[in-house]
């Protein structure tokens, strides 16, 4: 039996959505004198359970607002779940949003170090990896320019190169591969395959069903914060496409206002 890398048990993530949230002390003070706060709880995840093992490439699909990114952010440790148990073992590298963890005023080279440090690696380790990262990212002489001058494709190249070169046990990818050109996407696919062969775990969120079918054997389908399906890619993707064309469903799963 392969080792479990990610384990969600009945995970609930609640966001308190406050209408006119008091975000100053003055307003908070005024709110003290009101009988109750004007908010409702939005359950972005309503009791989600699954386990992902070594060497699996798992796709997560679902409509906008279904909870896909929330799952990734919980795995990455950005959110702490409201209830339920989350167990993660190993080093996590996340490509959640374009340019996350980059500082616009620092150069590409400095940002390589910053990114690694944010993952908890040492400066020395990152400097040792610099050459390989540059080789993969192919950003050329831009590497010594401030990142704010980069195109989104360059951001993604550098981000992907860093996240994969630091050799994480778990790699999270959220939709960002789409900004790369065909040649680079192929390079990424090859690297993802290499990761799988070395027994690493990859969680991949995308709306591109072609990419999902190509990269993942197993797919999770999330809908309105509930796990609707977990199984072989073809089967789950077909189910998702059915769901997409079901009439009378809202595109964004906003909660009913009580």
């Amino acid at each position: 039996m392969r080792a479990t890398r990610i384990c969600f048990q009945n995970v609930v993530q609640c966001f308190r959505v406050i209408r006119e949230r008091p975000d100053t002390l003055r307003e908070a003070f005024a709110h003290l004198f009101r009988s109750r706060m004007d908010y409702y709880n939005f359950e972005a995840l309503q009791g989600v359970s699954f386990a992902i093992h070594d060497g699996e490439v798992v796709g997560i699909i679902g409509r906008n607002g279904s909870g896909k990114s929330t799952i990734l952010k919980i795995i990455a440790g950005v959110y702490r779940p409201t209830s339920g148990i989350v167990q993660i073992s190993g080093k996590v590298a996340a490509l959640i949003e374009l340019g996350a963890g980059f500082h616009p005023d620092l150069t590409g080279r400095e940002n390589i170090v910053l990114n690694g440090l944010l993952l908890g690696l040492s400066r020395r380790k990152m400097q040792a990896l610099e050459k390989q990262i540059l080789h993969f990212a192919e950003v050329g002489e831009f590497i010594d320019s401030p990142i704010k001058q980069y195109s989104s494709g360059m951001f993604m190249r550098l981000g992907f190169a860093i996240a994969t070169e630091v050799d994480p046990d778990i790699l999270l990818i959220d939709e960002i591969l789409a900004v790369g050109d065909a040649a680079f996407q192929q390079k990424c696919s090859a690297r993802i395959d290499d990761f799988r062969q070395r027994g690493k775990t990859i969680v991949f969120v995308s709306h591109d069903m072609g990419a999902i079918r190509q990269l993942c054997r197993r797919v999770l389908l999330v809908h309105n914060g509930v796990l609707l399906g977990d199984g072989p890619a073809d089967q789950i993707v077909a189910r998702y496409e059915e769901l997409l064309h079901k009439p009378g469903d809202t595109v964004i799963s906003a909660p009913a206002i009580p």
Partner: protein
Amino acid sequence: MSDATPTLAESLKEVVHYRDLLYMLTWRDIKARYKQSMMGFFWALLMPLLIVGAGVLVRIVFLMSSGNHINFLDLASIALKSLPWAFFVSAIKFATNSLVGNVNLVTKIYFPREVLPLAAVLASLFDTAIASSLIIILLVFGKVGVTIHLLWAPVILGLIILFTAALALFLSCANLFFRDVKYLVDILLTFGIFFTPVFYEARTMGKWAPLLLLNPLGSLLEALNTTIIRHQGPSLPWLAYAASCAILGLFAAWRIFDRAEASFAESI
């Protein structure tokens, strides 16, 4: 990993593990402050020296109007106390904004968020260290003299840093939830200099002196002055009081920060 708040020891261990990140963010803060400015590192000297200058001017005016002679030791004392004050003001200002100013990091990646306010404190410490070298020269050439009591100075300075770090952690997270904390802090820092013995000594306030020393920063500055300029041992009860405020305050602030950290990403 679980959804529970980490213990203080776990949290400290994690910050130690991320120490390279702390250095880099500190360095980034220092660089960002001076990179696109005409005067560069001169800015690091400007603020502390302005405070020293203002204090000296006020003192001279007071002494002249009361017909007393201007005493070098009085001026040295003001210069000495102005620096930790300048450090405190700049550290608290930068730290209060440190989480909100880094939304990109806080909402998108995981790392111990304590490093952001702590980096702001360290960057201000670096600034003040530059200005301090000038004051040390002043004290040496002014023949203030060296006694055994000077050994207290590192302890007192250490406590000032701990106390500042405690407030920095607390205020950075308060400002994340309530954005006007920043303005409140600005007001308190502006008027704080009147209620902290920086330009004067607490004993000149007579029976009100203990009230000034209740501010831990006040008793620490007073102790710094007593040991370096007046060559006496510090008031031990007040030093013990300030030390417990600084250390217990840091524990409490760290704990509050860890508890609040769970909702940083969604509340920012």
